[in-house]
Structures are given as structure tokens and as C-alpha cells.
């Protein structure tokens, strides 16, 4: 059945590329409706203030302004508050302290960018000018811009129902055992670790085009979403915009997501509601400055950690205390990121029996924080892998040796933080990466660099993460408000071509190619005969969308399940028509054959037979279309080893990544070209976090890094060619054996970079991002310390 040219494992060029390289992609901002008006939001310039009054008169008087709408009208129409879809309880059992979040603020604004009103006008330019003319009187309040400060006694309180700005105080693992493990240690490594705040920055800014059909009482929303069905569900069930059968959500071509386009933001809600209020199609497209103050940010943890080792280098105990900044409101999955997506991965690749983590989530007067590529797992990986490298240096061991002493080697392996690792071969990834990176040749390269006046360093990261979220009942038990299955429908047409309808959503991942590959493999058909349909709630019945590297492990598994049903029916039809036993039917070469004979039906003949229904087995329904819902049995656990090599210019602190080597275990790989591309992009974002990117707020809650003038996006010249390899074990949990590859690069790379730079400069005290200034300062501190000795 295997189709070598276009099946599983083939480097098939992407089917979707032609429209993108010729400028024919259709993104949300390319959509134009008849009678379209434009929305511009009136946003708070203050991080924390009471709204005293809103004077719309000047804006309303402008010709071409359709209306100016505010939060009182919105709540008056019973548009619901924005929800957080994952309930996390504090360790004392109390529910999280979730403050109300209206799409348009009524009484109080809580971050710079919080919207208080929207102008609807005939042109975008006019809407923006009119928004400037809306006069809002604010009473400024004291600001809590930093998470650690927001927890201090006397800090300004942001929500009435969150005393001390604490959302929850949560724990996982056994503190008594972790303490005992640390007490028994012969060496303890202790670190304070910050995970810098980032802005996801998909290149396509968010956009929404909402249309209300008065006659049908029906809404259509084009939007930049990673999960249009989730958007429809939430808009309908919680925000009361319209019942689901009266709301169609279309996410056409979407220009990157990285988590930022999972959530249903105030702007989409407001555009839908405004289209009903004004009886116009309403379009809003963010500009980049607006994206920085409205798209959910990522990361932003402050942690202290202690790891104990015995005299053989075995980990005896590990204790972590983390403060997680969730911003001014709880975004859709914000609560799960620093808990179930973070602390559950703190065991890393290691057999750690005694582990405890405490997490306090905190409100601040900043943009809401939620999942960004990796979501919690990069924070966990960075913490463990900085600890391991540091401990190795303190213990005088090679970093690889200390890690290998602690690797998990028996599977399944239950960690003390509720994960069950199902497969992996961490030694294999380590060995592959060390060979590819020529670690043995490093001392010579270091010596050569020293002659040129450069400091060369080498850093490791052995990451594990959890993808394919996850058994619905399991996540339900942990507080998730949704199930996390995926759905698929396989439609074989009368001419034998196939459409795959999927609840997964592609916004750069190449599903139109890889999903077609698994069909080509299964039915041995030309890949051109397969089309992938996604991103439209009127076409696909339901789906949970794409995030957390789940399209392969969960989305493709649903397709396989539906193909199983199609194949069973095809076999029955063929056996009936060819007068053979079902067991003798084989599917190959575009035909359905009786093994060992010359009897065969073309795939198109099977399709036609199913739809003409002239000669089907007794009692068989006509047609050839099957659907399936697939619920995963476990998370999947991609893992690997990354080795980074850097050169630092000691005069300037400027650091160059001269070599980056990756060995990943992603389980089965459908298309190596696309998987390598995912790794490249993830590595670039991880190197960006490690060396360049940081969202900075001042103490007044003003965003300092609000454009590409200030927030450093990695450019081509900042990055190397990557050396990407695979040493895979099959995932036992899903039919194709897939683990997922979308986030690994962003998860595994930051500690490798920082470990390499700290190795080069001989000072372990360096925080991300390792800008030339930060590296230079760390170098000066190291020199000063050396001089003092």
C-alpha cells in the first residue's frame, strides 16, 4: 500500500505553495465585503485607571462615522465576559481568582491598550481619526507592572476578587520528599532563573471581518484563528453573540499563529456585535503597534530552584518556586500554561524521585499572557537545563556525563509530576548530537578562536516536552473546560478523488501536503487526487484546531481512524463485485485487487459503484464517506538533544551562534522537509528568546518595546544554518507513531544558547536575552571577580 513518492516519509514539495509564492493567498485582511465599514478601537493610554466618562460627540459628528459603541452598550446587550477555559485551584482547594474581563471596559482599564470603545466608520483612516476624537476621562490609579512587585504587601490591587493580585497558589509533587532529597544531597545547585517575556509576532497581524445578515439573523466571521470551531463555540456559548447554527467562522489562510491566534480576543467579539448594531460588515485589522499591546504575550516567569545530587551525580531532590505573570486578565488557556504545561515537565529527561514545584500566578497591569510556542514547556526546559549545566560545572563533570547519569531509560516511566513518558532513547539523541556537532573537536576550535581574540563556548540542552494534548477525560479532570480530541471526515467522490475534512488548522504547517501524504500512502493514490478542507465551520463539523503540536498526533490520527472505516467499506464493495473474500482484497497502484488474480477494480470504479449503488452488498448504504473522532490515550513526548556553539567578542559582548546542532525524536515523520522546516523556525524563535527578544514595561506599565524599532526580531544575519538530525523512537500511543515537531525547536534551544555563552565567558550569571550589553556586563563582572581573587 505504500506510495514511496508521495507517502509517509517522502519529501513532497508543498501543494499549498503556489498560491503563496504568486501572491494569491487569501488572508483575512484580503477579504472585502459589500457595504464594509471599518472598526478602530479607543484604547487606554494608562496601565491602570478608572474610566470616569466617555464623550463620543465629536467623533459621532464626523461625516462617515457610522457609530461609536462602548462597553455599557455591549454589556447591555448581554455580551458575556471573556473566559478562561481551564480552572486551576490553589493548593488549599480554593478556586482561582478570576477577575471579570469585558471586551470593552466599562469601569476600569487594567493595561495600556485595554479598549473602552470602538468607532465604526466608512474608511479605516476615518475610523482611526474618529477614535482619536473620542474623549475619555480617566482617573489614574497606582500601577503594578512587575509580577514580583505585584505580590508585595501594599501593591495596588488590579481586581477586587484577587486579594494581593494572587490568582492561585498551586503546587505539584511531594514537598516533604523533595526536602528530604535535598537534605540528603552531597551537593546542592541553587539558581534564580528568569524566563523573559516575549511577544509571539506572527507576521500576519490579527484581523476580523464580521457580517450580520439581518434576514437570517446569521453571522459570518472571517478571522485569523488557529481554531475556528473553538472560536465559534466560545463566541456562542459564553459571549452570547449568536447560537452556533447562526454563526459561521472562517479562518482562511492564516499567516502564522505561534499560540497568539488561539484566543478569542475582544476585537473579534466587538466586530461581530458591531456588525449587528450597525447592520454593516465590520472589518478590523491590527497594525503591528496594536499587536504588541493586544496579542497575548508569552513566558514571563521568575523562579528559584534547588537541585540536590549525591556523590555519584544522581539527582536526590529538586525543588522549584515560580512566580508566573498572567497580565491584567486571564486569557483563554493562561491558567494551564504555568501549571499543567510547565510544572509537569520539570522532571526533564531525568529519573527524579523527589520533586516539588510551587507556582503563584499573578495579575499585573500588562497585556494578558498565554501560550506562546511551547507554552510552559520552554520555561520548564530552560530551568532544568540551566540547572543541569550549572551543576555539572560545579561538580566538575562533563555536562553530557551528568545528564547521562540521570537519564530515564525504562519506559513507560512515571514522573512525580503526573506525566507518564511512553518512549524515547535519550542516549541516542545525545550521541547523535555530539557526533554531528563534533564535540570532540571543540577544544581545537576553541583554541583557534582564542587566537582570533574570540571566546568560544559550547552548551547542551536535553529537552523533553509533551504534545498532542491530550486524553479529554484526563485534561477534564485537571480543570480543562473542553475536550481535546480531533475530528476528521474522509469523502471519496464518485470519480475516486478524495477530500479530507479536518478540524486541525494550517497556518504554515503544510497540512495540505502532509495530510494528503497519509492518504496517498494508505490508498496508494496520486497526491494530486487528495484535497484537504479546513478552517470553515460550515464545511467541517467540528474540531479543536492546531496548537501544542497536535495536528499530527491527534489530527492525523482522526484521519487514520476515518480511513480505516472507508477501507473496510471499500473491501466489502470490492469483494462483492469481484466475487472474492474480503481477506483477499489488496489496495495498491490505484486499484482494488484480488490477490493472486488479475481481477481488479480501479479506485474510481469503487467510488462510482458506491454512489450509483446498483450493485452493492445487501443492506449496504450507498456512498463512500466516513468520519471519526479521535481522543488521544496519552500526551506524546518529543525529546532530543541540542548543542549550541558560540563565539563572543570580548570587546563588545557581541555573540555569534556559529553552530547549532539538533537531534530530535519526533516518532514517525511524514515529511522530513516540512519537519526540518518546523525545527528551523522553532530554533530561530528560541535563539531569538535567548539573545534578542524581550517585552519591557516601565514601572508605570508603559510598553517600552512596542514596535519593531524596539522589540528585536531575529533577522537572517542573526542566525546560522542549522544542523538538524533525527533519532526517533515510535510513539506507542497513536496509530502512526507520531510525537509532534512544532514546538521542540523553541523549547529546547534557549538553554543550549545560554549554556554556550556562559561557558564561553566563564560567568554563569547571565539572563536572557543575551544582548551584547548583557554579555559584556557579565564578562566585566567575571573579570572583576577574577581580579579580586
Amino acid at each position: 500500500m505504500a506510495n514511496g513518492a508521495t507517502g509517509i516519509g517522502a519529501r513532497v514539495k508543498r501543494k499549498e505553495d503556489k498560491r503563496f509564492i504568486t501572491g494569491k493567498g487569501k488572508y483575512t485582511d484580503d477579504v472585502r465585503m459589500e457595504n464594509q465599514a471599518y472598526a478602530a478601537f479607543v484604547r487606554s493610554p494608562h496601565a491602570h485607571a478608572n474610566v470616569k466618562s466617555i464623550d463620543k460627540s465629536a467623533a459621532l459628528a464626523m461625516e462617515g462615522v457610522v457609530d461609536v459603541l462602548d462597553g455599557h452598550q455591549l454589556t447591555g446587550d448581554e455580551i458575556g465576559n471573556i473566559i478562561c477555559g481551564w480552572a486551576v485551584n490553589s493548593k488549599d482547594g480554593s478556586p482561582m481568582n478570576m477577575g471579570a474581563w469585558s471586551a470593552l471596559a466599562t469601569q476600569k482599564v487594567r493595561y495600556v491598550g485595554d479598549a473602552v470603545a470602538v468607532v465604526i466608520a466608512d474608511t479605516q483612516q476615518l475610523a482611526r481619526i474618529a477614535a482619536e476624537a473620542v474623549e475619555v476621562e480617566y482617573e489614574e490609579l497606582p500601577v503594578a507592572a512587575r509580577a514580583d512587585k505585584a505580590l508585595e504587601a501594599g501593591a495596588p490591587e488590579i481586581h477586587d476578587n484577587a486579594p494581593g493580585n494572587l490568582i492561585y497558589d498551586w503546587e505539584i509533587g511531594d514537598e516533604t520528599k523533595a526536602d528530604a532529597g535535598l537534605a540528603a544531597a552531597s551537593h546542592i545547585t541553587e539558581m534564580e532563573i528568569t524566563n523573559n517575556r516575549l511577544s509571539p509576532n506572527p507576521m500576519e497581524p490579527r484581523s476580523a471581518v464580521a457580517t450580520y445578515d439581518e434576514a437570517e439573523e446569521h453571522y459570518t466571521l472571517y478571522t485569523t484563528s488557529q481554531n475556528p470551531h473553538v472560536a465559534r463555540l466560545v463566541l456562542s456559548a459564553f459571549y452570547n453573540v449568536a447560537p452556533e447554527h447562526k454563526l459561521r467562522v472562517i479562518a482562511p489562510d492564516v499567516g502564522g499563529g505561534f499560540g497568539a491566534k488561539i484566543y478569542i480576543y475582544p476585537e473579534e467579539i466587538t466586530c461581530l456585535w458591531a456588525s449587528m448594531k450597525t447592520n454593516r460588515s465590520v472589518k478590523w485589522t491590527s497594525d503591528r503597534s496594536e499587536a504588541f499591546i493586544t496579542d497575548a504575550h508569552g513566558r514571563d516567569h521568575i523562579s528559584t530552584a534547588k537541585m540536590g545530587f549525591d556523590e555519584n551525580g544522581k539527582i536526590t531532590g529538586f525543588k522549584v518556586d515560580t512566580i508566573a505573570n498572567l497580565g491584567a486578565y486571564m486569557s483563554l488557556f493562561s491558567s494551564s500554561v504555568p501549571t499543567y504545561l510547565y510544572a509537569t515537565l520539570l522532571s526533564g529527561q531525568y529519573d527524579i524521585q523527589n520533586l516539588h514545584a510551587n507556582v503563584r500566578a499573578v495579575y499585573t497591569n500588562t497585556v494578558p499572557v498565554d501560550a506562546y510556542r511551547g507554552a510552559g514547556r520552554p520555561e520548564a526546559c530552560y530551568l532544568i537545563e540551566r540547572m543541569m549545566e550549572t551543576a555539572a560545572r560545579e561538580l566538575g563533570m562533563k555536562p553530557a556525563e551528568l545528564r547521562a547519569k540521570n537519564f530515564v531509560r525504562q519506559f513507560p516511566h512515571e514522573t512525580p509530576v503526573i506525566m507518564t513518558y511512553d518512549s524515547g532513547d535519550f542516549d541516542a539523541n545525545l550521541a547523535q548530537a555530539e557526533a554531528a556537532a563534533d564535540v570532540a573537536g571543540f577544544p581545537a576550535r576553541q583554541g583557534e578562536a582564542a587566537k582570533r581574540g574570540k571566546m568560544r563556548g559550547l552548551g547542551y540542552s536535553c529537552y523533553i516536552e509533551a504534545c498532542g494534548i491530550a486524553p479529554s477525560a484526563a485534561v477534564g479532570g485537571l480543570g480543562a473546560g473542553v475536550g481535546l480530541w480531533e475530528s476528521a471526515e474522509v469523502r471519496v467522490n464518485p470519480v475516486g478523488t478524495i477530500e479530507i475534512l479536518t478540524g486541525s488548522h494550517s497556518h504554515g504547517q503544510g497540512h495540505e501536503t502532509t495530510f494528503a501524504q497519509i492518504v496517498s500512502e494508505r490508498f496508494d493514490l496520486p497526491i494530486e487526487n487528495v484535497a484537504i478542507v479546513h478552517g470553515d465551520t460550515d464545511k467541517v463539523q467540528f474540531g479543536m484546531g492546531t496548537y501544542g503540536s497536535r495536528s499530527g498526533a491527534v489530527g492525523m490520527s482522526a484521519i487514520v481512524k476515518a480511513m480505516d472505516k472507508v477501507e473496510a467499506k471499500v473491501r466489502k464493495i470490492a469483494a462483492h463485485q469481484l466475487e472474492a473474500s474480503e481477506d483477499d482484497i489488496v489496495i495498491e497502484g490505484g486499484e482494488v485487487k484480488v490477490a493472486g488474480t488479475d481481477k481488479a477494480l480501479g479506485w474510481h470504479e469503487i467510488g462510482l459503484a458506491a454512489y450509483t449503488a446498483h450493485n452493492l452488498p445487501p443492506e449496504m448504504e450507498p456512498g463512500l464517506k466516513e468520519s471519526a473522532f479521535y481522543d488521544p490515550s496519552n500526551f506524546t513526548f518529543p525529546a532530543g538533544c541540542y548543542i549550541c556553539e558560540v563565539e563572543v567578542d570580548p570587546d563588545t559582548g557581541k555573540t555569534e551562534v556559529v553552530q547549532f546542532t539538533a537531534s530530535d525524536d519526533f516518532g514517525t515523520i511524514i515529511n522530513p522537509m516540512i519537519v526540518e522546516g518546523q525545527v528551523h523556525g522553532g530554533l530561530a524563535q528560541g535563539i531569538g528568546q535567548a539573545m534578542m527578544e524581550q517585552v519591557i514595561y516601565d514601572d508605570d506599565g508603559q510598553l517600552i518595546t512596542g514596535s519593531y524599532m524596539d522589540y528585536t526580531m531575529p533577522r537572517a544575519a542573526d542566525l546560522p544554518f542549522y544542523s538538524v538530525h533525527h533519532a526517533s523512537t515510535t510513539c506507542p500511543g497513536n496509530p502512526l507513531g507520531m510525537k509532534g515537531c512544532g514546538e521542540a525547536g523553541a523549547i529546547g534551544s534557549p538553554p543550549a544558547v545560554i549554556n554556550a555563552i556562559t561557558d564561553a565567558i566563564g560567568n554563569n550569571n547571565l539572563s536572557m536575552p543575551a544582548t551584547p550589553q548583557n554579555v559584556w556586563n557579565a564578562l566585566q563582572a567575571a573579570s572583576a571577580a577574577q581580579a579580586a581573587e
Partner: protein
Amino acid sequence: MTKINMTVNGKAVTREVSGETLLSEFLREDLRLTGTHIGCDTSQCGACVVHIDGKAVKSCTTLAAAIDGAEVTTIEGLADGDLHPMQASFKEHHGLQCGFCTPGMIMSGVDMVNRYKAEGRDVTAEAVRHELEGNICRCTGYHNIVKAVQDAATKM
């Protein structure tokens, strides 16, 4: 309003535009050539790059009225036939994922290769990375974009 004449993708175009209309806006909204994208508001991301009289320019920082009489080529008009070699190389080398930055990358890549060829300079990886300073991609990590541009340089 100002009356402007241009040749866009080989076709003569005459329109009335306001003085503040950006070329990017004119192309996207007036001519509905939506392959030219807007990814930032500080002229840094390069998703809007088009060719004006054969040179790569960020259309988001060009006033439409200021280039009266110019010849403009957008991503839609780049190919003379099926695909321009740069477009083909981007596909061949998986130089795109979400596709949003891609039109600008391709237009910058073509301009760069044209200049380097005219000056007899090698299109090295280092040169490509340097020349793409004004084009940001968030998906690919640039690895395959650099390879695509270098490959196209051998075919243009």
C-alpha cells in the same frame, strides 16, 4: 485628490488618489493586488516590498502620488509565464511556511540577485543574509530562504 498614471504589472493604470495614500494601500485596496502584505507600521518587516522601476522598495513607505509615471511590479506580476525562478526556488527549497512574508522576500530576493549579477558579485549565503536585513520571517528561521535565494541566483 491627485490623478496618477502608472504601469502596474505591465498594465497602464490611471486612478485618483489622495495625497496621503500609501503605495501599499493603493495596490491592495484600489487595485486589489492583495499579494503585497502589511506586517508592520515602522517599515521594517518587508512584507510589502514591490519593485518600482526595477528596484525593490517598501510600498508602505512610498506615497502613491509620488511615483506618478513609474513602472511597478508586484508579486502577482513577477512571473513571465508560470513561475519566476525565485518563486520556483522558494517552493523547491521549502522557503516558506505561512506565506505571509513570502511575497516581500521574493521581491527583495529578485532585486538582490539582479544587482549582484549586474555587479559580478557572488550571491553568498552571507550576502543573502545581509541583503534580507529588511525582511522579517517568523516561520522558517531563514535557513531555507537563504538556500532558495542562492539557488535562484544560479537560474536567473
